[in-house]
C-alpha cells in the first residue's frame, strides 16, 4: 500500500511520468496492433452473419460501435476522476491527464454516434431518432467539446485547468443517464447486449471482446501520446525537457 502511494506521488512528477509513458508506449502499441489484427480478422471475415433478427452483415458494425460507445463513457469517467484528483491533491499532472483524455474521448463519442447512425439506417430505417440513448450520447459529445473550448478560452493555464475540471466533474451526471437510458425509457436503441446474460450469441462474442480489448488499448496509447505532448507543452522551460529536446546534458546554471 505504501509502495502504491509512493508510486502515485511519483506519477505527479512530469519528468517521471514522461519517462514512464515513453517506456510503456511501445508495449501498448505492440499489444494493440496484435489484438486489432486478430480482432479485425474475426469481425470482418471469420465471424458469422446475424440471422435471428435478419441483420445480416450489418452486425459487423457492432464490433466498432460497442467499443467506441463504451470508451466514450469510460473516458469521461476517467476525466472526472483525474479532475477530482487534480482539485483535491492539487496535482498538476492530473489536469494534464484530463486535457489529454478529452480529444480522444470526443473522437470515440463521435464514432459511437456515426457508426450508430450508419447501423440505424439499415436496421431501423432511420439515421437518427431523438431517443434518450442517442440524445444523451450527443450531449456527451458536447460536454467533451465544451471542455476543450472552455480550457482553450483561458490564457492562464491553472484557471483553465480548474474551470475545466469542474465541468468534467459536473458533466459526469450524464454518464448514468446514457447507461441506464435503455432501461429507464422506452428507446428505439436496444437494451444491454454484453452485461445481460444470453443477449449476445456466443458466435459474436469472440470478435467483440477482441475488438473491445484492442480499441481500449488503442485509446490508452492515444491518450498517453497526447499526455506526453501536454507534459512537454507545460514544462518547456524545464531543464530535463531542454535536455530531452536537444539530446545533450546541460551544464549547471545553463538553461
Amino acid at each position, binding site marked *: 500500500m505504501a509502495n502504491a502511494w509512493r508510486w502515485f506521488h511519483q506519477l505527479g512528477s512530469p519528468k517521471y511520468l514522461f519517462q514512464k509513458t515513453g517506456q510503456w508506449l511501445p508495449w501498448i502499441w505492440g499489444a494493440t496492433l496484435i489484438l486489432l489484427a486478430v480482432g479485425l480478422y474475426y469481425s470482418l471475415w471469420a465471424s458469422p452473419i446475424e440471422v435471428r433478427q435478419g441483420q*445480416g*452483415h450489418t452486425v459487423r458494425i457492432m464490433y466498432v460501435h460497442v467499443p467506441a460507445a463504451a470508451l466514450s463513457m469510460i473516458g469521461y469517467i476517467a476525466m472526472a476522476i483525474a479532475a477530482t484528483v487534480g482539485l483535491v491533491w492539487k496535482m498538476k499532472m492530473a489536469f494534464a491527464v484530463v486535457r489529454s483524455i478529452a480529444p480522444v474521448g470526443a473522437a470515440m463519442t463521435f464514432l459511437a454516434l456515426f457508426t450508430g447512425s450508419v447501423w440505424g439506417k439499415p436496421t431501423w430505417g432511420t439515421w437518427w431518432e431523438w431517443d434518450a440513448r442517442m440524445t444523451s450520447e450527443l450531449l456527451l459529445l458536447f460536454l467533451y467539446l465544451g471542455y476543450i473550448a472552455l480550457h482553450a478560452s483561458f490564457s492562464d493555464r491553472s484557471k483553465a485547468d480548474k474551470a475545466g475540471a469542474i465541468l468534467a466533474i459536473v458533466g459526469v451526471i450524464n454518464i448514468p443517464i446514457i447507461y441506464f437510458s435503455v432501461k429507464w425509457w422506452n428507446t428505439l436503441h436496444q437494451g444491454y447486449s454484453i452485461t445481460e446474460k444470453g443477449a449476445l450469441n456466443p458466435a459474436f462474442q469472440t470478435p467483440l471482446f477482441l475488438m473491445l480489448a484492442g480499441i481500449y488499448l488503442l485509446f490508452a496509447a492515444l491518450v498517453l501520446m497526447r499526455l506526453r505532448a501536454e507534459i512537454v507543452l507545460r514544462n518547456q522551460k524545464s531543464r530535463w525537457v531542454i535536455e530531452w529536446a*536537444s539530446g545533450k546534458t546541460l551544464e549547471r546554471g545553463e538553461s
Partner: protein
Amino acid sequence: MSSWHEFIFMGKHGAFVWSSYFMTLVVLLGLFIGFRMMLKSLKKQVEVAAVAPDSKKQKARKLKVSQPD
C-alpha cells in the same frame, strides 16, 4: 464469409459496414498523426529556444506573475 465478393459487398450492406470501419480508421489515424506532429513540433520549438542566444530569445507572452531577475 464464403468469398471475396461477399467480403466486399457485405450482402447488400457494404456501404454501411465499410463506411463505419473507414471512418473509425480515419478518425483514429488522424489523432495518431496529430499527436505525433504535436510532440515533434514542441520538441523542435524547445530545441530552437535552447540554442538561441539569450538576447534573441523570445520573451514569454501572457505572463501573469513577475519573473525574478
